[in-house]
Structures are given as structure tokens and as C-alpha cells.
């Protein structure tokens, strides 16, 4: 296990949040200029944007994973989320891409101020934690099982939804669609964050299992992201983004769908 340092963890989490917003901005700003100000870009320039976005997302993934190695997940995630919210508001608001009403601005400041206080009142760094021992605690096993079960069940439904959509159905009709998507997104994100912390604390078979679990979570996250981009109203998605936050993926998915439609 790496030496724990909450300052590093918080800084990296904030950087991850900022980079994620920048990743969206790379695609969103030229699109905004094109549609609103009729500015035309060269084809070559437009072709660079998507790979640039992907590169940014890879950087985001790396920074986010590393940030969990240095501090408690319960501090890292809120700081990452609040960084995304504030940078999203700053960049998109200043550039005029999006208008943020007063309640959204105040809400953002409330979340950010809360996240900033977390390292002062919340958990401190714990050095030398043994991941295997932690997981062997009965309560820990129980909670992990709940998270895995919820991720597996909701992930299964998400894959079924995607299969239904790929069969040509435009709109999914399921009474618990929103609950399933939200559960899949939240549980998989929580699991993947903890699993990414396990990556540095395990070896051998344990590491292999961790990598498999991490990939499984990534599959679920990807499925939900695709479904969210096409199935959930934007106003609802914005709430989910507060919890799970993969907006650049939404944008990318939109972009890919848009490109494939041309």
C-alpha cells in the first residue's frame, strides 16, 4: 500500500475533476461555436477533437485511480465530484455555453464548501492497511456482497436493455428503468473506486481477481453510460452526474452516435 497522504489524494482528485470537465469542453466548445456563432472548423481540426477527448479521458482515469491510492475514498470522491461541478460551472458559464441559474450556482457552492471541509472533519489517512484483512471482516464481506449483487443484477438488466435497443427498439419501457440505471451507476462507481484502491494492496491471484472485478465494473459503467445518454432525460442525468460523474463519456457517446448517424 502506498504511503497515505490526504493532501495528495485531494489534489489529484480535484485535478481529475478538472480534467474531466476539460475533456467535455474539447468537444463541446467547437460544437457550440459551430451551432451558435456559425464558425466553421477544418475537417482535420474536427478529427483531432475525438482522439484528444479520449486521451483526456485516459488521463482522467489514471489520475482518478491514483488519487484513491493516497487517501480515503470517502474524501477523494466528494472532492472529485465538487471539482467537476465547480469547473463545469466556471468553464461552461464563462464561455457562455451553458447558463447556470442562481439555485444551481448556490447548490454548487454548498457542495464544494462541504467537500472542502471534509478533509478537516472527515477520516484521516490510515497507514499500512491490509486490504485482505479488511475484506475478511464479516460486515465488510456483507457490504461487499451487497454491492456486488446490486452491480451484477442491475448490470445484467442494463445489458438486456442494450440488447433490446440493438434489436431496433427506440425507447425502453420498463417500470424500474430509472432505478436500475441509478443503482447500476452508483454501485459500480463505488465498487470500482474501492477496487482501484485494492490494485496496489494485492498481488498474485488477489490482483488478478481485482483486475477482473475492475473490468467487470467498467463494463457496467460503460453500459449505463450508453443507456443514460439515450434513455434518461438530461435533467435527471444531471442529478446522477453528481453521484457518479462520467459526463465526458456521455458527450463522447453522443458524439459517436452523432458521427455514426451522418
Amino acid at each position, binding site marked *: 500500500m502506498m504511503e497515505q497522504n490526504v493532501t495528495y489524494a485531494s489534489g489529484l482528485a480535484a485535478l481529475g475533476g478538472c480534467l474531466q470537465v476539460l475533456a467535455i469542453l474539447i468537444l463541446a466548445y467547437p460544437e457550440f461555436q459551430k451551432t451558435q456563432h456559425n464558425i466553421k472548423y477544418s475537417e482535420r481540426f474536427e478529427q483531432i477533437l475525438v482522439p484528444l477527448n479520449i486521451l483526456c479521458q485516459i488521463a482522467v482515469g489514471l489520475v482518478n485511480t491514483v488519487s484513491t491510492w493516497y487517501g480515503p475514498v*470517502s474524501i477523494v*470522491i466528494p472532492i472529485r465530484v465538487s471539482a467537476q461541478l465547480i469547473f463545469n460551472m466556471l468553464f461552461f458559464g464563462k464561455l457562455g455555453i451553458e447558463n447556470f441559474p442562481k439555485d444551481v450556482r448556490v447548490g454548487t457552492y454548498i457542495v464544494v464548501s462541504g467537500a472542502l471541509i471534509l478533509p478537516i472533519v472527515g477520516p484521516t489517512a490510515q497507514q499500512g492497511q491490509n486490504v485482505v484483512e*479488511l475484506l475478511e471482516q464479516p460486515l*465488510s464481506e456483507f457490504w461487499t456482497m451487497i454491492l456486488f449483487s446490486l452491480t451484477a443484477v442491475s448490470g445484467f438488466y442494463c445489458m438486456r436493455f442494450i440488447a433490446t435497443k440493438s434489436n431496433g427498439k427506440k425507447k425502453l419501457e420498463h417500470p424500474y428503468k430509472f432505478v436500475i440505471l441509478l443503482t447500476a451507476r*452508483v454501485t459500480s462507481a463505488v465498487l470500482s473506486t*474501492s477496487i482501484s484502491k485494492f490494485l496496489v494492496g494485492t498481488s498474485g491471484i488477489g490482483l488478478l481477481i481485482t483486475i477482473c472485478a475492475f473490468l467487470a465494473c467498467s463494463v457496467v459503467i460503460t453500459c449505463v453510460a450508453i443507456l443514460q445518454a439515450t434513455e434518461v432525460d438530461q435533467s435527471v442525468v444531471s442529478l446522477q452526474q453528481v453521484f457518479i460523474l462520467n459526463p465526458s463519456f456521455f458527450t463522447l457517446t453522443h458524439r459517436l452516435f452523432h458521427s455514426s448517424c451522418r
Partner: protein
Amino acid sequence: MNTITGLIIWQDWLVIQSWGGYGVVMCQILLGVYLISSLDGYSHSADSNYALAQSISIQLVKDKIRKNGNRGKSMIVGLAGGNIKTMMNAIPEDNGDEDDEEEDDEDDDFASKSLISFGGTTIDALKDSIRSMFSYGSVHSYMQGSEDFDA
């Protein structure tokens, strides 16, 4: 979910610096998220039309009490029931005396003036707008018994 995971799996409960502070910050974050979101838990329970009618009625009662002293009490009773008839006819019942009829005329005039003071509109326009407001939605029932609305 992250907090619970942190507490259970990562044993954050051993190193929390301030339980009270941590709880309050969590509440603050949840409230902030609620403020940002499009969810509104009271959107269906609150009736803005009814609230507006109550506001108008309360203003009328205040004016009446200011002018007539204790005579405005009967309207306060009417307000508690939320009766649109009472609201729109914010004049206390008379005792059958001729003198009172004159006073009622004055009261009518006063009530009209009070209504005119809302947004500088005319009494008829205001009545029309309130009538249309009450023609739809859950407040429709409040219109029951208000046949003499235009009286």
C-alpha cells in the same frame, strides 16, 4: 454509498476527526445536491394558486381590521377554511340594520380599493384572473359555493 463503504470496508470510523462535523457536512452536501437537482419534493403538495388567493385574502383582512377594528374577525375564521367565497367577499355579514347597509357599501368600496391596490389592476380584471386561476387544478373545489362571485 461512498461514505458507507468508507466506514464499513475501509474502517474510516476509526479515524473520523469529528463525527458531528462529518454528519453536518454530509447533510450539507446532500442539500446542495438537492438544490442543484431538478427534484422538488413539495411541487405536488404546494398549491401556488391557493397560496396566492390566501395572500390576497390576508391582505384584505389586514386592511379591514385596520379600518374596522374587531369586525374583521369573521373573515379570519373564513380564511382558516380557505373558502374562496369568503376570500372574494371580504365583507363581514351585516346585522340587518339600515345603518349597517351604508357601512357595507363603504366596506364594498374599501374592499374594491384594496383589490385595486394589487398590481394596479382593476377589480374586474383581478376577479377575472382569479376566477380563471381557480378554474383549473386541485383548487377547483374552492370555487364551490361561490356562485355570487361577481355579486
